[in-house]
């Protein structure tokens, strides 16, 4: 049996951690503005953040409350995997880069034209060196994430997984941290059981 130890969500200019609303901005603020406000709210001091594209910013912000938490930091970083998914890959940045092509092609944009760069950014910030996978799906797919995470847990201790999707108008981030139940620790029983239903509930609620 495996458990969801912590989860975060960013949508509609709100950031939730473990079901609690922890940052919110006016609807009128565009989402990239919200991501910068959320950075301040989380008291991050990570100047690299401002060089990132929206997808990586979204991932860094969703990962932070989970990985700064003592429940997740007890696991070996070498045995923590990152499994992410979205539907737009890096298309928003692809378009931004393609607009620079005829003039001065921007290498700093080009490096973000891959979906798994956000995996790299989260890995660098939290020194996580385990397994990686990035899946592209038409919509959030709890079955796929659950299935592959369970396969990885045969050899990994924990998996950070979820959905990070951006386009020009909106972003949607949902990350959660799954681990095998640590032995002889009754308190862990209170955590959410890891199955497609519980994942879907956390995603839709």
């Amino acid at each position, binding site marked *: 049996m495996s458990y969801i130890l912590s989860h975060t969500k960013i949508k509609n200019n709100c950031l939730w951690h473990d079901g609690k609303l922890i940052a919110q901005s006016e609807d009128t603020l565009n989402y990239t503005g919200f991501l910068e406000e959320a950075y301040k709210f989380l008291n991050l001091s990570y100047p690299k953040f401002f060089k990132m594209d929206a997808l990586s910013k979204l991932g860094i912000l969703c990962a932070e409350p989970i990985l700064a938490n003592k429940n997740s930091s007890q696991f070996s*970083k*070498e045995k923590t995997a*990152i499994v992410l998914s979205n*539907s*737009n*890959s890096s*298309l928003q940045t*692809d*378009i931004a*880069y*393609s607009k620079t*092509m005829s003039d001065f*092609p*921007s*290498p700093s944009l*080009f*490096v973000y*034209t*891959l*979906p*798994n*760069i*956000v*995996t*790299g*950014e989260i*890995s*660098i910030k*939290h*020194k*996580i*060196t*385990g*397994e*990686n*996978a*990035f*899946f*592209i*799906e*038409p919509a959030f797919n709890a079955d*796929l994430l659950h*299935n*592959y995470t369970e*396969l*990885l847990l045969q*050899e990994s201790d924990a998996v950070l997984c979820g959905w990070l999707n951006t386009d020009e108008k909106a972003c949607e981030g949902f990350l959660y941290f799954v681990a095998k139940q640590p032995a002889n620790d009754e308190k862990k029983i209170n955590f959410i059981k890891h199955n497609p239903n519980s994942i879907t509930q956390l995603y839709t609620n």
Partner: protein
Amino acid sequence: MNKAFLHNSNIISPLGFNTKQNFNAVCEGGVAMQNHVFNGVTYCAAVITSKLLDETFVQQTKSNPQEFTRLEKMCILSVQDVLNNSDIDTKSKRTLFIFSTTKGNIDLLENNTPQIPGDRIYLHETAQAISAYFGFLNKPLVVSNACISGLLAIIIAKRLIADNQYDNIIVTGADVVSTFTLSGFNSLGALSNKVCKPFDKNRTGINLGEAAASILISNQQQKDGVEIVSACSANDANHISGPSRTGEGLYKCLQKILADNVIPDFINAHGTATEFNDEMESIAFNRAGLQNTLANSLKGYYGHTLGAAGVLESIFCAESLRQNKIIASTGFENQGTSIELNIIKKTESKKNKTCLKTASGFGGCNAAVLYKLN
């Protein structure tokens, strides 16, 4: 736990439209890269002639070439060849199609054609178009994880088969050469304007290449079956666009999959011919005690085919094991890494049983697979 085996395969590339043509061309020293002009700029790249692609597509599939993009036509030809040479049922619940790509139909950003719906820029739509063509019952799985995509797709297939979720999985890796990727790698200063020279002292960067490569991975053992013995991925957690100087992530992969001090008969490295990649690989191989193991890179024949590379190169690993051949790392003349590697200089017959395949990519990702001829 079921075992997973590499079965029949196909490669669509400038060197040929099936595995046999490609393997023979490479054994004879064929190189796919030539000078091509994209948007007025000359690049050294491996590009499939559109006319030949369309003619072959019409001949082999009797379908309208206008309804599919270049990438999709390459993939359809590739998957069709694999299906023609096997008896797997695409409509079975126990059959899966995995599609690996980095940029998919990125060329649609510049040349949108009226016959192709605009949503085919989405990788899941591209995969769905290919999958629907063959009537796969299961929804395709799309893996996009930079330059390890192809090898990672094979690793995922192995895990799904080991867990008895499927009997047969077709993994297709594909990317095209586009103004987008050429301009991007050029902006990073990563492109060589001559045919690339992996691991050589005078290497000056990568060439881009296009290919679609497909392989059937099955739980059925067969004659000449190549088993996927062990496989894993790991992140450097170091830099998004450069490898760890100490080869951290790749070394972690090697430590994990070469348990019990197994030394493979040869290594098919990532070997992109950039300064940093080849240096990093030499360090990781040395740390794992593999500095004397025969090693090659196929990038000197095909360029870097991005999302196709891991599949295309794994097909070569399997054929090298089956045909007892070791393939020269073309472009290599003088040691060019701080750790001396045992780079294969001449294509020749040699008995082999095991082979290590590695890949590394942007985002700090690394992957490695150990193949064994049964």
